[in-house]
């Protein structure tokens, strides 16, 4: 069953033993220095910086433009407001006039309009918000569940481990799109948040396995032994001594879970098993306008560009974090 000895990005390997040794000596000082090390390594990772920047751009753009909930945005059109279709084409122009372009401006409808005259920029931003929200909820829920199950299984061993890992095996045995599709067609009608929660409840297996592997090795460490010998409770050991040291692997997995959740959500919505109207998401929009590629290409391209931007930036951040934490794992796309 054990399959945790996997290769990792070896380029950062030399730094890791130092950090691990430091952990064993004293808590406060080492924690900070480890954090500094990680930060330094992360910010030296060009891909990660690029990812961070791109991700922030997408988040800030989507929230600031049309606002969120009661907060108004700077863009004057809403994703629900219908209107007359004025040609429908996009008015965005980025080529300055002295180069023969139309000048740099957004225009009335930068991404064009849809069938019933809604502003497609506002719609895309709304779709981006929903897709991001789903991805983050899925990432959080699956990380939480996976961490709890993995930590409990790894720490308690015995029958608890057997039961929890069998449950994990059962979830793994069901193909992602099968379980997500079934869940999607049952709960997607009842709102985006519920859909995201349930999706998160299906996609935690990878994290549970990784965390369990990490905990299995951490629980044999001397400081855990020491804590156990002075009678510290299991919960305290797990939360105070083991999980903080497994944080690297958890954070990295959570990041990658978010990236894959963006793609899973959009695939489900594309197959009509995900977000249901009147809600919208990027995958939903591609599904609605997949036949528009040759006649109204902007309706097809923009949501795709934003899906790629989100997935790409989060993947880069994850890669940077992995190099920074040097967890011994690699990604598998499902």
């Amino acid at each position, binding site marked *: 069953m054990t399959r945790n000895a996997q290769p990792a990005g070896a380029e950062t390997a030399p730094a890791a033993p130092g950090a691990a040794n430091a952990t064993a000596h004293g808590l406060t000082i080492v924690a900070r220095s480890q954090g500094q090390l990680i930060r330094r390594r992360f910010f030296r990772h060009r891909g990660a910086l690029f990812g961070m920047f791109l991700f922030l751009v997408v988040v800030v753009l989507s929230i600031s433009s049309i606002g969120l909930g009661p907060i108004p945005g700077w863009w004057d059109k809403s994703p629900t407001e219908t209107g007359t279709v004025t040609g429908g084409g996009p008015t965005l122009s980025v080529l300055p006039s002295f180069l023969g372009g139309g000048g740099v401006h957004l225009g009335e409808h930068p991404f064009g309009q849809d069938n019933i005259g809604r502003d497609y920029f506002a719609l895309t931003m709304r779709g981006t918000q929903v897709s991001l929200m789903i991805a983050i909820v899925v990432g959080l829920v699956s990380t939480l569940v996976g961490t709890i199950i993995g930590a409990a299984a790894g720490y308690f061993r015995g029958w608890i481990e057997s039961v929890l890992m069998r449950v994990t095996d059962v979830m793994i045995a069901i193909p992602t799109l099968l379980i997500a599709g079934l869940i999607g*067609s049952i709960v997607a009608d009842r709102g985006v948040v519920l859909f995201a929660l349930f999706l998160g409840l299906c996609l935690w297996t990878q994290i549970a396995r990784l965390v369990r592997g990490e905990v299995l090795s951490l629980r044999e460490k001397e400081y855990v032994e020491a804590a156990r010998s002075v009678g510290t409770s299991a919960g305290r050991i797990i939360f105070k001594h083991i999980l903080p040291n497994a944080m690297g692997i958890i954070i990295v997995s959570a990041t990658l879970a978010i990236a894959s959740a963006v793609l899973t959500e959009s695939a489900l919505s594309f197959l009509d098993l995900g977000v249901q109207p009147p809600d919208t998401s990027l995958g939903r929009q591609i599904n609605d306008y997949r036949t*528009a590629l040759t006649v109204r290409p902007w309706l097809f391209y923009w949501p795709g560009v934003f899906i790629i931007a989100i997935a790409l930036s989060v993947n880069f951040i994850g890669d940077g974090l992995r190099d920074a934490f040097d967890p011994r794992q690699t990604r598998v796309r499902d």
Partner: protein
Amino acid sequence: MTRFGRTSKLVAAALGGVLVLSACSSSDDDSGDDGGESPGASGPSGTVTYAMAQPWQSWNVATAGANSAANGQVMEQVISGFWTYGNEDGQPIPNEDFGTFEKVSDDPLTVNYTINDAAVWSDGTPIDCDDILLWWTVQSGTFDSVFSAVGTQGVEDTARPECAAGDKAFTLAYDQPFADWVTAGPGHGNNAMLPAHVVSQQGGFGSEEEFIAALQGDDPAPLEAAGEFYNNGWLISGALPDPALIPSSGPYIVSEYVADQSITLTANPEWWGEPPASETVVFRTIAEEEQVQALQNGEVDIIEPQPTVDIAQQIQAASGIANEVGDEYTYEHLDFNFNQGVFADNLALRQAFSLCVPREQLVDNLIRPVVPDSTVKEVRNVAPWDSGYEEAVAASQPVIDEFGVQDIERARQILEEEDAVGTPVVLGTLENQRRVDAGQLIQAACNEAGFEVDFQPAADFFDTNGALAQNRFDVAMYAWAGAADRSGWNSTYRTVTECSAEGKGNNNGCYSSPEMDELLDQVLRTSVEEEAIELTSQIELLLWEDMVTIPLYQHPGITAWGQGVENVIPNPSQNGIAWNADQWSKS
């Protein structure tokens, strides 16, 4: 040198082996070089390929479970009958190749049928009395525990036709008038006449006479095995049934089937009518979104997708593709809930809602990009190309002028008079792109007028537990299939026994009016055209006056075909384009 010597020996050995091999297999001569197309010296040639979104599931379209449009399309040219829906206007047209029929009396309604003397199944068996009796037994519901049928309306009112083995003529005598007597006779689709000799043989009968006797008897027991075969033996599970079980009575036979990929029809050598234009017609199973690209890429010749704005424009923008757009029989409408909620007992509110619905804008944004000359639908049960359409519109015009044209001011005024500004309204529909767009337009307009529209598109809208069946709507938006028949929509407005999922039938809003029930009875029982037109006009007027439903638009249809494909004639009936597939050809 020794090494070289060994090398050359090796080469020689290798060549030897190679030559032996080539000797073994060079006996297959150079046949098959001409990529499959073999223009025959006589008879039809060529292949036309049609893309169909749904899979083919049954050779017998006449059972309750198999009555799908896709099954009907495939079987249209394989099983023929006295009539079929066709032409540009989708009306029933008689098929003289198969036989002739004639109404000989109005009271009692009596129709004489004669099958063409030359008519035979493709295995050579004549089409005659046993086929007639099997058809009648199934369609009349006489042994409905044995034979599955889609519906029995009309035929259940006829007496069992008299005939003996070998007879080709029979009479249907109705015990009460029936408006749609033409389409009640043996025709296409769910009213098709299937090969009785196959059913008889599979049911364990020794001879035609024996089977006829069983069909004429009162006991269903001896027919159990035959019924089992009739209901299930023609289902298509992964492969075609034995060719002996699927003899054809039309221009084509089903010759090849690859599950979920394609169905191949080839010309029926025993066909006695005019030979079909192409040797083979292939139906390929392709999802609608992929059809335009497949047509552009020459993988199929004819497509007929549900047109979204983009699919229509994509077709119109593509080069080398001919297309025709037009309205379908299917039409979209809004139903009010008469059982519960704000509209149930309040005509004024219904009128106010009708006044805020942007019917013109819906057509403008969603339909005209596909069918440029489409118009708002003014009446429900007759299509613009049906007889009696002008009369029905003229009768309803005063009400349409008053309440059927969008006037948000007026709607708001009524709401204020009724002290109902801010009335919440649940607008339910099945979730798909066009309906979601339409719902959002209605929501925007009616909110402006002072309603609080809660738009709820749902994938389970039609489910037993869905919004429509469970009355969880104030206004429901969906479509009726529509047809030239008058019996098809009769139950839609008839008072129901109980307003529940089981009890309400097609009358989803549970509208009830004794006057309407009376009119509906009359229209079903008249076989005189003028009377039927007059009654239909009265019904439409009453529907507007009571504001039962709001008609929105005919569904748009689009048909496109590639270069060199000829004789594609779209028609608005559900029968679709395959009605004249025997005339399709490709140069």
